């Protein structure tokens, strides 16, 4: 091996480090493609607005003094149009720290998300 010398080994070593660094940056870019999709899927699948709307419908039902048939409406239409098994009960008013409130239990299950709540309203 004539004329071969061993100068500049630090430079070669740094070049290797730079190559490894670029490899990791490429991995990060690769992962970032998944972020938008999984986030959007998570938001679409989680029935946040459905549960909020169901709660407000039940509170309206309590506000209007529990008219006949409305509970059956909510349960039947939830199952038929929203694919959600819903049940709720409204019990007699009780004393909660000096205020008279209805204990309301709400159960919601659409096969992906299960939501249970006992709320005093």
């Amino acid at each position, binding site marked *: 091996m004539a004329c071969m010398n061993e100068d*500049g080994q630090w*430079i*070669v070593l*740094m*070049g290797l480090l*730079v190559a490894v*660094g*670029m490899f990791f*940056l490429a991995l990060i*870019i690769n992962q*970032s*493609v*998944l*972020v*938008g*999709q999984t986030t*959007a*899927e998570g*938001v*679409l699948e989680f029935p946040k*607005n*459905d549960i909020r*709307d*169901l709660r*407000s*419908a039940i509170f*309206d*039902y309590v506000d*209007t003094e529990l*008219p*006949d*048939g*409305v509970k*059956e*409406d*909510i349960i*039947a*239409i939830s199952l*038929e*149009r*929203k694919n959600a098994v819903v049940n709720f009960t409204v019990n007699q008013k009780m004393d909660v720290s000096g205020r008279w409130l209805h204990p309301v239990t709400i159960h919601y299950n659409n096969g992906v998300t299960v939501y249970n709540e006992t709320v005093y309203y």
Partner: protein
Amino acid sequence: MVNDAGQLYTMEGVAAGIIMLLTAYIVVSTTSVYTTGDTHIPDMQLEQLGSDVLAMMDTPDTAGGESSLLGLVNGNKGPEFKDAFLNYCNATTSGAIDNLHMSANVTYRDASSNVINEHSFVTPDETWTGRESAVRVTRWVQLDSQPWPPGPVRPYGTRAQAVLVEVLLWRA
């Protein structure tokens, strides 16, 4: 004169240049979402927009008052509902208005036969082909019993009931 000394310095300079370009590219591109051609993202935004519009229409102007959504459903005013809904949906902060279209059903339960029926509230316009990436947003509406003798009878029956307003929303 030209000679071939310092070639590794040249290579180092090239590597440094590439690293700087790559860094600038990464910094600039972090401001955008990489996922290309994925319908989940506009679907998510459209669904949230529709839910927000329905929630806004279901909010009374004053405490204890009647919300505009309740009044429109109770009076079976489909065209007015469509105008109000699209007016809110298509509003933009500047420039031309958006190009969203909608149709709506009201689902109600017939208590005597215990059957769930759909009432066509807003029929789809001419842009509807059935192949749109439409999203569905819903809102519960509670109707009081209709006093007797009724004026124009609403299509859902006269008893106090909960009905589900379902809106299909798409961009054309």
